[in-house]
């Protein structure tokens, strides 16, 4: 699995863009982290609608605070802290205790998707999640070896294109192309699934 820190250069690029006034870059950050952030907020708040609202508020707070982000910590950690504080403030305003035990900021470093989003997720969402997993597994199995290897080395082992190129004994450009083609093949199946639902 790719550690969030391994994608930090992408975040750094996007953050710099946002700080220069490019809202589109922030949009990409929202698209990238919306589910992870909802999962974090979901540890405090049980209601799905409230989770969405609080997560949205956290993103807006993050956008407003973006000029203050100096890059001393990872963007994801910083975002995580904002989400946790927003969730806590929300509960305080409602005079409710957090749904689960306090989540410490340091948890952000270790946080992964193994923490399931919303323990009390709806049957529909569970079904969709299961279907999604099945679709991805099936799509990965159907990939040619070279594509599957490239994507696996990237997604599971977090290797750089350069390292993958050395392992697969091919140019970096080929690695890039293989990973893209693999993602694209999986994406077509996922798109079909999401359209169906």
């Amino acid at each position, binding site marked *: 699995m790719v550690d969030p820190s391994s994608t930090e250069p992408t975040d750094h*690029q996007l953050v710099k863009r946002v700080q220069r006034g490019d809202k589109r870059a922030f*949009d990409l950050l929202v*698209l990238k982290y919306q589910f992870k952030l909802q999962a974090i907020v979901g540890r405090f708040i049980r209601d799905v609608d409230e989770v969405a609202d609080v997560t949205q508020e956290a993103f807006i707070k993050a956008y407003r605070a973006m000029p203050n982000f100096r890059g001393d910590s990872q963007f994801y950690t910083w975002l995580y802290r904002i989400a946790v504080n927003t969730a806590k403030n929300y509960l305080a305003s409602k005079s409710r205790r957090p749904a689960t035990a306090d989540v410490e900021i340091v948890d952000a470093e270790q946080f*992964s*998707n193994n923490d399931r989003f919303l323990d009390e997720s709806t049957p529909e969402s569970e079904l969709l999640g299961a279907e*999604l997993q099945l679709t991805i597994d099936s799509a990965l199995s159907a990939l040619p070896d070279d594509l599957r290897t490239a994507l696996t080395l990237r*997604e599971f082992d977090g290797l750089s294109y350069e390292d993958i190129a050395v392992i697969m004994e091919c140019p970096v450009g080929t690695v890039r192309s293989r990973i893209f083609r693999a993602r694209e093949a999986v*994406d077509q199946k996922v*798109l079909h699934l999401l*359209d169906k639902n």
Partner: protein
Amino acid sequence: MSETEIPNSQQRLAESVSALMDAEVSEMELHQVLKAVDDNQSVDDSVLKGQSIRSKWSRYHLVSDSMADAPMAYRDISSAVSAAIATEDTYSVSANSSGMGQIGRFAVAASVAMIAIIGVQQYNGSMHQDIQSIQVAEMQVDNAEPNRGPAIQFPADFQPSVQARTVSAGGVVKTSRSPVTLVQVANPDANLARNQQLRSLLSEVLETHVTNESVNGIQGMLPLARHLDAGEGELE
């Protein structure tokens, strides 16, 4: 829509999106992706939206997260956040504008100063070449020191004033007005030879002209008179 139906440009962009996920893109590619995201936001057609760069970015991450063994409930809040952010000020530009503005103004001032210096240098250079080509030197002559050598001089009371503006490092503008005597410097021997050449050439031209004019012109005698007049002048 199958993979082959996607235009090449979209394929390239999608590949850039994939590489961006892995932090393997240049600034130029990032710029292209962001531009595509912006363009795609206005797409209404659901099929096209599904193939949009924005959607791909979102789904690529969804797959990436899911590959990490975590089926997650899917709740897309990106559009709501995007709409909320759209109403926000692009604070960063204004927040940095004071600092950037000063830097910008300094840069402009420095550029203007640099252009002025280069321009003056080049102008002076070309002036210098021009002056050399006509064998005329502009020099300030100490009035106490008698002129030596120059063949041709302007009258003694001819003192054109030259207004020069100097720029100091402290930014104080000074204007000096000093009398400058222009002296044409030429080699006397060369001048004499050139005068003789010119006179002989002029005589040839006039003679040719007179010959033709006396035959063809209705006032054939006048050129001759001018020729004679020139000849008399020469004798003087």
